């Protein structure tokens, strides 16, 4: 019973971080039909930048902000140089291009930071006792912070002027252009925002298990899964799906090893694609 409670907490915390990763991916997909294979690698790069900033300044919040800004700039550059020329081509070519980018980023990180695991120290010290187990506060803080960032993103999309531009472009890019919204600029901005979300979640995840240059693919795959389960391009759906899938994986980890628990989310994905390809957490389309 205790174990179930701890795993529930674990699943919720992991789900919040995953929701941040997925929100960037789903935002990019929703507006540009781009499946960003490099998303997890941008996350990894953000975590490394964050670790470096932390090493220099010793301030966790500066690390979070610095990583987000650096990766946002990188995302903007990537979008302009490689993805903008591909607009109007088969969406599959963007998968291939972002896959190429992911290879480059991964090896660049290996070259720059080496193969060893980097630690990001916990921003909030201390544990609290949950029944008989110690549970660290920073995990709770991370989940809350992820929730705040997601809430901020949601408010921005809902009420901000540029958020409304983004939603307008998602709905109908031709009409948006006709209304005077600079669509190419919106594309670049959204890619930058998505990249920044990835980088921030990388820094948030850093204290959990350390930062390695191979962590990206795992996140890309998991983000894909929850984005499809939640409904492609649907922000709220992705967040719910992240928590749902993470909880399932946590519970599965009680029975089997964590490495095998991943299969649970694969199965959820396949079942979703077969029976509800528009996503689990969206109303049935007419």
């Amino acid at each position: 019973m205790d174990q179930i409670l701890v795993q529930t907490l674990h699943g919720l915390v992991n789900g919040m971080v995953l929701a941040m990763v997925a929100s960037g991916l789903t935002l990019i997909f929703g507006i540009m039909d781009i499946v960003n294979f490099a998303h997890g690698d941008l996350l990894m790069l953000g975590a490394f930048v964050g670790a470096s900033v932390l090493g220099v300044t010793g301030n966790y919040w500066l690390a979070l902000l610095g990583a987000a800004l650096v990766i946002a700039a990188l995302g903007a550059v990537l979008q302009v140089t490689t993805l903008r020329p591909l607009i109007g081509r088969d969406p599959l070519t963007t998968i291939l291009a972002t896959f190429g980018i992911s290879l480059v980023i991964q090896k660049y990180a290996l070259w720059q930071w080496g193969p060893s695991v980097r630690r990001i120290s916990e921003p909030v010290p201390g544990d609290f006792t949950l029944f008989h187990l110690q549970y660290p506060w920073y995990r709770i803080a991370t989940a809350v912070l992820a929730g705040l960032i997601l809430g901020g993103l949601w408010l921005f999309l809902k009420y901000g002027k540029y958020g409304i531009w983004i939603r307008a472009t998602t709905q109908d890019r031709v009409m948006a252009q006709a209304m005077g919204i600079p669509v190419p600029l919106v594309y670049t901005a959204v890619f930058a925002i998505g990249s920044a979300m990835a980088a921030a979640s990388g820094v948030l995840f850093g204290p959990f298990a350390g930062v390695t240059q191979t962590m990206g693919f795992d996140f890309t795959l998991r983000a894909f899964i929850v984005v499809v389960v939640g409904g492609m391009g649907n922000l709220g759906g992705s967040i719910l799906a992240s928590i749902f899938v993470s909880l399932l994986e946590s519970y599965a980890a009680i029975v089997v090893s964590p490495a095998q628990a991943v299969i649970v989310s694969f199965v959820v994905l396949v079942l979703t694609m077969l029976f509800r390809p528009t996503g689990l957490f969206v109303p049935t389309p007419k």
Partner: protein
Amino acid sequence: MTAMPAARPRSPAVGYWIGFAVVVGLLVVAPLVLPPFWQRFATEILIWGLLAMSSDILIGYTGMVSFGHSAFFGLGMYGAAAALLTVKPPSLGLAVLYGLVAAGGAAVFVAYFATRLRDIYFAISTLVFSQIFYVIIFTWTEVTGGENGLTFGQPRLSLLGLGSDRFTPTTFHWFVLAVVLISYLLVRRITQSPFGQVLQSIRENEPRTRAIGYHVERYKIVAVMLSGLFAGLAGVLYAFQNKFAAPDFVFFVVSGEVVIFNVMGGMGTLVGPFAGAAFFLLLREGLSRFLTEYYLIPLGIIFVIMIIFLPQGLLGFLRRRLNA
């Protein structure tokens, strides 16, 4: 790229067969003149090319991008390993059979689910399925050897009971060449058959193909199965060459490389994937001499540039002639 002039309808085919004969001739002579390292390299290109060609059936001819070919390749390897480790004495034919059964079975399983989905959803689902196989193989240590994989001896060459002989690098190259040639001609014949025409029509316009009355899903399942079988065959050959099966080859990176081979060489040409594999492996060899494992940085950049500026691939301009 325009239509062939009507006055010489046979000439593309003649040119094609002359080119074909020249390339085959070069490949036959290759092990006799190349130093041992490059000899092995040539064999490896043929095997990777076969894997990439199997993927071309889906990418180039049916319009479905598979990111899961590592699963079929890996299961071919492990299937061959199973036959070589359990059956005494090791038998070449049985190893091929086991490998094909394993890969084909996996392909049918994946195809049953994945072919109901289209475009990126198909790509993601094949990726996810290949990761399922990876996790199973990686964690089921008692049977698959887990992270360390399995090692075994090379089987002896025995064709139709005509005695048996140890493989030398040269005879192994010829053996691989023969298998690859037969596979290539078979796949070429398949893509030109009415079945292959239906696949291409699915690529061009799926709703219309369905409206004409073809059972699109069934065609797709068969296409994935065929593709998986040839990928498995490549896995078997690779297992023979290296005498081991390792989970690394089931990992998604291999699937990614297969897609790269196709894009670099030219999708929908069958020969292109071989050229792409050769181009990629040669670049890797050259770059890793002075960049070690960072060769992927320039290679990745070249790949992205090719996607933007050369979407047809190296041999894309020959597409019409190669399918003549």
